[in-house]
């Protein structure tokens, strides 16, 4: 990657056929966090969990993959569902629920990042 991507835009992650119905997959976002004009670039990796819930209103969600309570990159391996109509993922480690809409943890004061995501022409795209 030569260009610095300070500008946020919709970027393609994978094919919609890579999604797993009612479950999660994980993607690695590699960003250039460039330090001004000197060109000493720093690359930053971010793991996101992408969930495909065809029976929900939004159908597709993207949140951070790091479980701030279990302190491991595991959230995409959690079971998804809803709690009082809020779509959630349950951490596979200690089972706390994180809202897929807001990233808020329903049991403890923690939250995870939420990303804008869409399916466009059979492609899964994230805005970053």
């Amino acid at each position, binding site marked *: 990657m030569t260009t610095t991507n300070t500008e946020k835009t919709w970027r393609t992650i*994978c094919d919609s056929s890579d999604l797993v119905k009612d*479950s999660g997959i994980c993607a690695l976002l590699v960003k250039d966090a460039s330090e001004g004009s000197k060109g000493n670039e720093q690359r930053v990796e971010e793991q996101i969990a992408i969930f495909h819930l065809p029976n929900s209103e939004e159908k597709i969600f993207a949140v951070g993959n790091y479980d701030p309570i279990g302190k491991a*990159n595991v959230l995409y391996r*959690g079971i998804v569902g*809803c709690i*009082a109509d809020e779509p959630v993922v349950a951490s596979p480690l200690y089972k706390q629920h994180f809202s897929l809409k807001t990233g808020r943890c329903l049991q403890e004061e923690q939250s995870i*990042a939420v990303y804008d995501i869409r399916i466009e022409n059979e492609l899964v795209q994230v805005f970053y």
Partner: protein
Amino acid sequence: MNSDKQLLSKAKIVVVGNGMVGHHFVEEMAKNSDYEITVLSAESRLAYDRVYLSSYFSGKTAEDLALTTPEHYDELGVIFKTNAKVTNIDKLAKVVTTESGDSFEYDKLILATGSYPFVPPIPGGDVEHSLVYRTIDDLEAIQASADVSKVGVVIGGGLLGLEAAKAVKELGLETHVVEFAPQLMAVQVDGGGGRLLKTKIEELGVQVHTSKGTTKIVAGDKLRYKLCFSDDTELETDLILFSAGIRPYDNLAREFDLEIGARGGIVIDNQCKTSDDDIYAIGECALWNNFIYGLVAPGYNMAKVAVKDICGEEAEFTGADMSTKLKLMGVEVGSIGDAHAKTEGSLTYTYENQPEGVYKKIVVSADKTKMLGAVLIGDTAEYDSLLQYMLNAIDLPEAPEGLILPMAGDKPTLGVDALPDTATICSCHNVTKGDIIAAIDCGAVDVGQVKSGTKAGSGCGGCAALVKSVADNEFEKRGVEVKKDICEHFAYSRKELFDIVSVEKIKTFDELLNSHGRGLGCEICKPVAASVLASVWNDYILKKPHLSLQDTNDTYLGNMQKDGTYSVVPRIAGGEITPDKLIVLGQVAKKYNLYTKITGGARVDLFGARVEQLPPIWKELVDAGFETGHAYGKSLRTVKSCVGSTWCRYGVQDSMTMAIDLENRYKGLRAPHKIKFGVSGCTRECAEAQGKDIGIIATENGWNLFVGGNGGMKPRHGDLFATDLDDDTLVKYVDRILMFYVQTGDRLQRTSVWMDNLEGGLAYLQDVIMKDSLGITDALEEQMAAIVGSYQCEWKTTLEDPEALKRFQPFVNSDKSDSNIQFVTEREQIRPARGEEKIAVTFITEVESDTTEKEAVAEEA
């Protein structure tokens, strides 16, 4: 909070002391926002759980013990100061002043100063390694001293002394307890109980010296100090821990003219007021009716009474029950009411079983109709019901001894219905049966809501079972079906779902949800549905429609470890393994650098495999003839066995062959919970079969079958189900029992709990299985045959399915691996790096704006 403070009308409440009781007062008081509360704590930290102090030595940290945090007090709008010992009270100006000179005005003052350990004035006792056991700071001092000590002595063999002894033992020191009285726990336990307690505690490696008065402490010959006793004997030690009783912190009352008792303690009335109308005293510093309560529950009660009195509501403290149940170094001890039979004319019944280390005594009234007290050592199963008999003056059965005799036929059980509404159910939070009923009247619809509404069960937790049965009983009485709903998405129990799935021939979760559920499902109903679907149809569990239902352990066919890696546990039926296969395990572990351990289930576990490594690892294992061990599933785990008659000179049957056959027969069977078997070749029971769900012990004539044993949190021995069975009958019975369990067990119910919950218990199960009382045994056997016949190794199937293998790629758009998984080496093998050992990997945790995007936030190390 600031705007609140400006309201001039707010009355000021100052609490001196932030121990357990002072904190409870604050929490109760803060519910009323008309007051400004200030707490002054002499300690360097806010309130923590003193009752669980000892757990500090078994791994709990100061944070774990904390009852509150500065943030929480801020939220409540409570002003607090630590290291703020109050040294002056000006009753006229209504001001208190701390050691450092800060002054605080009050309208009402609460003294919750608690007590301090009494250190008897023994000559030479005031030395460096002479310590007490009361605060977290004390614990730190004990730890530091233990690090440079070999032997520790606890002076005082009461309840706290024994707890302190446990701590000293856990710190790895040779431990002694020295008690002045002729027995341990003289306050709570009678002579007979004390004797047995001493034996049991000595068996645990703590040396007990009773009837020993310490006269002086001098320098030791071999160790740091020497205790000299009045009978001219001596004991050398490095560390001395005093636990010789407590004394109330009543110095403020003494100095500033509040009434105190002849032997100390701040005198309070039924409203917890001291001799000054605006000053209350609560907890261990308070003397009520000439008595100081050294327990938290009465203190909590006093706190509540004081709060109510301040708010102008009526309330009275009327004393408290001092019965206690505890586990001292693994020895169960219970003391209820008049344990010493001091009541005029009282009669006692005693049961003592020396070989098993059980002592039970009940004290009843002269006319044998009421329970007055009890002592239980070694087994406190009857504690709850005996306590209820006493507290509620319930009429005793004809033969009261039946209450403590083992196997007394129909043991009179005390139905919760028999309890009056005033019966205390949770003594920590003083919740009565009436309170629970009131909570249900106010709309609580399940036990969880009853608990959160009343706080019952949130203290020591000892009352949880009783709370549940009182609440369930109440729900049942109202015709409210006790909710066995597995979650908010399905108004059914696991058994009901099982019936729905089999009767309506439902094959997928979506079908089930559409026809009988609501919402999207969750991590509770999905795995239950998966287990039921697997039992009814025995489909390969990673088939597309089932895939998303499984817990990660089932999805990745391994147990997730704390760092997100997985464990690999191949099946080693019966624990028998050829040298060649053992070598393969070693080679695979070495090649993938996996941590290797023999498990408690007598097989080998390889830890630390990343998701992407699981398929290649399992490919090598499957190629070498291994199968999955289902260590991840709610399914058959291991059949533990001994070598039996093949090798052992005492073996009477071939337990090895039986174990391997059984393990191969039931492997892969999905159940409400995991299932373990044990097969022993003779009555010596080396395979610990009685501790397993299904236990089989060889006899001269065949096999004895035990059902419902388990280890774990609440160990239980299995019940003898049938004797001298031949091989075929044994397998037939086990088929039926397991299938019946699979169909009727509740979610996460081990066989023990399942059997106990069947109406009629063991006898009923024997009728169903051996006498076919329900006429279902043929069906059960057929279902089991179908499952046995369609077994497939889930790993083998997965490896052959490219679609399924896609799941094991960590990222959908990259070949990299997770950089947060890092290992370090310990004892020549890997282990997960701890936070502070990790090499920081830069990544952003949140994306908010363009600016934060550039600031790479290093992971919190």
